């Protein structure tokens, strides 16, 4: 038997310009076994952090987290994508070519689709083929969703998972694309997550199971390699079991069976742990 692989993949959580889920995303990556850093977008661009040189090359996982980058006023994630394309486009493409991982959560997902990093049909990593637009309800929503996970997807972040509950918190999460592009996403296994009911069956657009009117209940997609993953729900929002809306009842039920709930991590961490495991195997 070989010793457990304890290599710590290095992760960057981008910060600044109105991004805001950086603390809990960083915390969650650490829980998952990564060596994680919160780094300002301008530091990644300038290649310098507090007098030290930094480079994307030295990291394995790049996380575009949640928030309101540049206030989101011209479409969520639009101005951030413009900034990053301008200053980091080539570096990020190289990062991807090197077999590393990119994760976009909520505002990060919106940024990834505007950058064209996903869905990247035919490995064209600059084309915009899908969009995340205003929720059909016309308003921001914070609610927990059930997710159905595609077992046939190449996505490295969801390996071994079939369903998951996570919070969504957004005003622009409606997944939209032309019908033929949606077909293509399904054919390629690039649809990773779909909004579902309690039994793991697709929501079929029913609100609030599908909280935003996403076509085909799509909640998350990946690139053809499965190494770039974007999703509207927040895995870092379920970093501890007490984040779950039903935890007090679950705990009470366990106690009555004479079991104790182990103060344990939330299930959202599994997505990040998959990323860490993948890097450990690949590098």
């Amino acid at each position, binding site marked *: 038997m070989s010793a457990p692989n304890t290599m710590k993949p290095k992760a960057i959580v981008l*910060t*600044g*310009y*109105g*991004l*805001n*889920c950086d*603390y*809990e*995303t960083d*915390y*969650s990556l650490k829980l998952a076994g990564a060596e994680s850093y919160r780094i*300002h977008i*301008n530091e990644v661009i300038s290649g310098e952090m507090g007098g030290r040189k930094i480079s994307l090359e030295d990291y394995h996982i790049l996380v575009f987290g*949640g*928030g*309101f980058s540049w*206030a989101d*006023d*011209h*479409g969520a994630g*639009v*101005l951030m994508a*413009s900034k990053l*394309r*301008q200053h980091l486009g080539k570096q990020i493409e190289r990062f991807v070519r090197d077999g590393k991982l990119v994760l976009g959560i909520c505002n990060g997902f919106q940024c990834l689709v*505007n950058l064209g990093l996903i869905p990247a049909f035919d490995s064209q990593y600059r084309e*915009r*083929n899908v*969009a995340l*637009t*205003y*929720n*059909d*309800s*016309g*308003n*921001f*929503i*914070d609610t*927990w969703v059930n997710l159905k996970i595609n077992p046939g997807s190449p996505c490295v972040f969801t390996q071994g998972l079939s369903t998951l509950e996570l*919070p969504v*918190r957004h005003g622009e999460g409606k997944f*939209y*694309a*032309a019908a033929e592009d949606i077909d293509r996403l399904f054919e390629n296994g690039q649809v990773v997550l779909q909004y579902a009911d309690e039994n793991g069956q697709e929501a079929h657009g029913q609100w609030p199971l599908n909280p935003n009117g996403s076509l085909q209940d799509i909640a998350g997609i990946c690139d053809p390699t499965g190494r770039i993953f974007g999703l509207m729900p927040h895995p*870092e*929002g379920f*970093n*501890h079991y*007490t*984040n779950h*809306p*039903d935890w*007090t*009842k679950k705990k*009470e*039920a366990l106690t*009555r069976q004479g079991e104790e709930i182990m*103060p344990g991590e939330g299930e959202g961490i599994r997505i990040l742990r998959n990323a860490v495991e993948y890097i450990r195997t690949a590098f």
Partner: protein
Amino acid sequence: MVSRLEIRLKKELMDAEGAGIRQKSREYFGFEVDAIRVIRVLTLDMELKPDQLEQIRNEIFTNPVTEESSYSPMATGFDWLIWIGFRPGVRDTAGSTAREAIEDLLGIESKQDQAVYTSKLYEIRGQLSEKQIKKIAGDLLANDIVQQWKVFSGYEWDKDKGIGFPVPKVILDHEPEVSTISIQSDEELGRISLERNLALQNRDIPVIRRYFLREDILKERKTVGLDLPTDVELEYISQARSDHCNHNTFRGLFRYHDLLTGNRETVDNLFKSCIEAPTLKIKEEKDWVTSVLWDNAGVGRFDDDHYYVITGETHNSPSNMEAYGGAITGIVGIYRDPMGTGKGSRLILGMYGYCVGHREYEGELTPHLHPRRLLDGVIEGVRDGGNKSGIPTPYGLLFFDESYVGKCLVFVTALGIMPATIGHASSHKKTTSPGELIIMAGGRVGKDGIHGVTAASETYSEHTPAGHVQIGDPYTQKKMHDFLIEARDEELITFITDNGGGGLSSSIGESARFSNGARVDLDRVPLKYEGLDQWEIWVSESQERMTIAVKPEHLDRFMALSAKHAVESTVIGEYNDSGYLQLDYKGKTCAYIRMDLLESDFPQWEFDAQWTPPDMRGLTEPVISEPEDHGPLLKAILSRPNICARNWIARQYDHEVQGSSVVKPLVGKGRDIPTDAAVVRPVLGSNRGIAVSQTLNPSYSEIDTYHMTGATIDEAVRKTLAVGGDPNHLGGLDNFCWPTIEYHPANNPDGKYKAAQLVRANWALRDYCLGYGIPLLSGKDSMYIDGNLEGPYGERRKISGPPTLMFTVSSVIEDINRCVTMDAKFPGDLVYVLGETRNECGASEYYQMMGAVGLNVPTVDVEALWPQYLALHGAIQAGLVSSCHAVSKGGLAVHSAMVAMGGELGMELLLPLIPGFSGLTVGQALYSESCGRFVITVAPGKKDVFEKIFSGMKIGRAGVVTESPRFSVKDGREKAIIDEDVNELKHVWKKPFGELI
């Protein structure tokens, strides 16, 4: 050259914004609109070449999947078109981020007077008259105070010219000048004060004149080239002496006279006697109380390595004028207080409270904004302010009362956290020292918000200057927040405070007290546009700014961090120990005021307070026979506006960002019942948490504000304890909103009574804070919640809001794993009622529904209740409690039903088993709002241990949770007096606002 880019969703995409407006047009006005689609407009007042215009259109502003765009007019096939844009000088965040993105993409830098302006076009299809369209434009979409609008009909539309090129640029064309003000007599200064809107207090005028006429002062002033007071100086004094900044009312002298007993009493300084004294006493007893009563917010210990910071305030007047702008400015503004507490804290939580007229108000008075529109705007303002700040908003209140049509109340509360030490120094301590630089960071200064502080200290009338309304910018502030936390951790900050009411005048004026002097170059303050007078720069309340003291040797690093975070920071002066505040403009002194002037003996405000006890006012208990149909009665109460579900608000607020959520705003099986308190775990990885709850019960004020205050404090305490809060760590926050208490025979004939109400509320605050051991970590008062509204006959009627206290309780929870929620968990669980129900229906929901006020307002007996609270805490900590819920508005019937609704389970209750039942009528038992009570469910196996903890106390095992979803109550006879389907109860409770999203 000016260009105009128009962007719209492709036709096949649903336009959610348009659909929302269509729905509101129907709901607000009954207009049937066929369709509304929105076009976003960017007016580019920049030098751009055609290829550059195409590049930014394609690469930034148009999403090829969902949008189409053009530099030519895009509107087509409409019946009406409404254009809405900002007025000049109003904050246009989207415009400035657009400019930033254009500059970044093209690698250009535009001139300071170049800009991008955003506006919107609404294409409307439907058979509507011009009058109806103007109503949609003016009363639904635009607010005249901050926006301008135009209407185009399909006939007159010039499809080539379109809307033209709106450029709302501010051009003042004014050379800044300092004027001096004559002080020959008190009368003259008083007149000038009125003319210039200085709002100097009449009683302060002689003190001010005396100062400027002093020989030694005149001599000193001469050395800096000054003689008569300048407008800058008088504005400074006026701001510092305003009620908003100085709390003159609470520090006033009250001559209290009880008309029943004839008792007379002089009450000197409510703040000192009822807030400061008890808080300092409790601070001595509780070592977790870290820093209170001086800083922007109070500080308590969270754990050995962290402090938490809490404060709250109101933003009533601006919200009343411009609901969205006022509310977003309010929430973003309160977030600066924790940022400016100690050496700065990171924001972890926000809360809200709205008091408004009824959403369906149809009275004959014309409020500035209809309560429905006002409420919608306020909700959206706090939504954008909180969500875009990345701070969870897991708790809030909404309360309707007809009398809030005069002025609405918007409460905002903020919590932050900071490491206990920065370097080797305590984080809650800070000071300024001679030689340190004064830095202004964040936004720039414009005309906005000038005289905001003095306007908040006045009653709203048609003459209230609208200029004090602003639109908060959470984006700019979030960048600044991230920057300042980093600067703090690098030990670059020696002092920090926010620029709120009074602007630089207040932030520098107060911070310079520590070093005992400061000198400022007003011409170095970055402006939004040229042409501001010196005094305007000094008192402007332009938002998103902090004032920071930095040692010269740290300046380079501080500025480098500022640049990294894309935050503007500017050195505008330095602290010294001269004993003077000196303001210069281009090398010339325009203000020179001794630091101790404001500490000199300005006359105390004085009030006559006359208390007429409720029975003397003719209040009696109503005569109501026992209702025969308690089921329908319960349903009717559940659907009343102050009881029913208002879940649409909580759902649009991000209450889980930061990953710290433990108890959410809505709990239970359906995740739809309001929690007693919210709990967060601000230090991820730690088991500690903070519980917070808020309450307000202004209806009780109609009987006695003493008991209103007691009941409000007790309810907040119980709500915090219900989720597992620690009775030995209860932090308080008092937010008073009161109608004008200064007696005036014509304008405020009941002023003396209102003053007595304030005194009594403060007495109760003192008594119950001492009783429960609650230090007042922070608090604010907002007087003048009156409005003079237009009536149907050309008259104006004064409407005063009810005396309102919002009370917040915070508690540190040692182990969040022990928290409980209010929903019944399992069938078979035993239902206990803790605490005595008494004949206390006065001002209850029940009486209100019956059209009565009554006399028997709930009273609080701390000594009787406290042991029960300690026992409850012990039971929760021991894991014996399955659910726990505080009984409040609506009484036991409503709140035990809520416990059942939370679990989507049934409940059987036997009223004779509740403590205090004998001697009560069934109606009283069901609907009395007696304090001190909880509904608790317990697993049957834990019955004995649980009951032992409460032995000898007022507790009754009054029922059981059932599988079958029936809510059934018996009064001792065989037949149930209530037997309703829990799902039906929930349906009724949700229905009133069920359509809102």
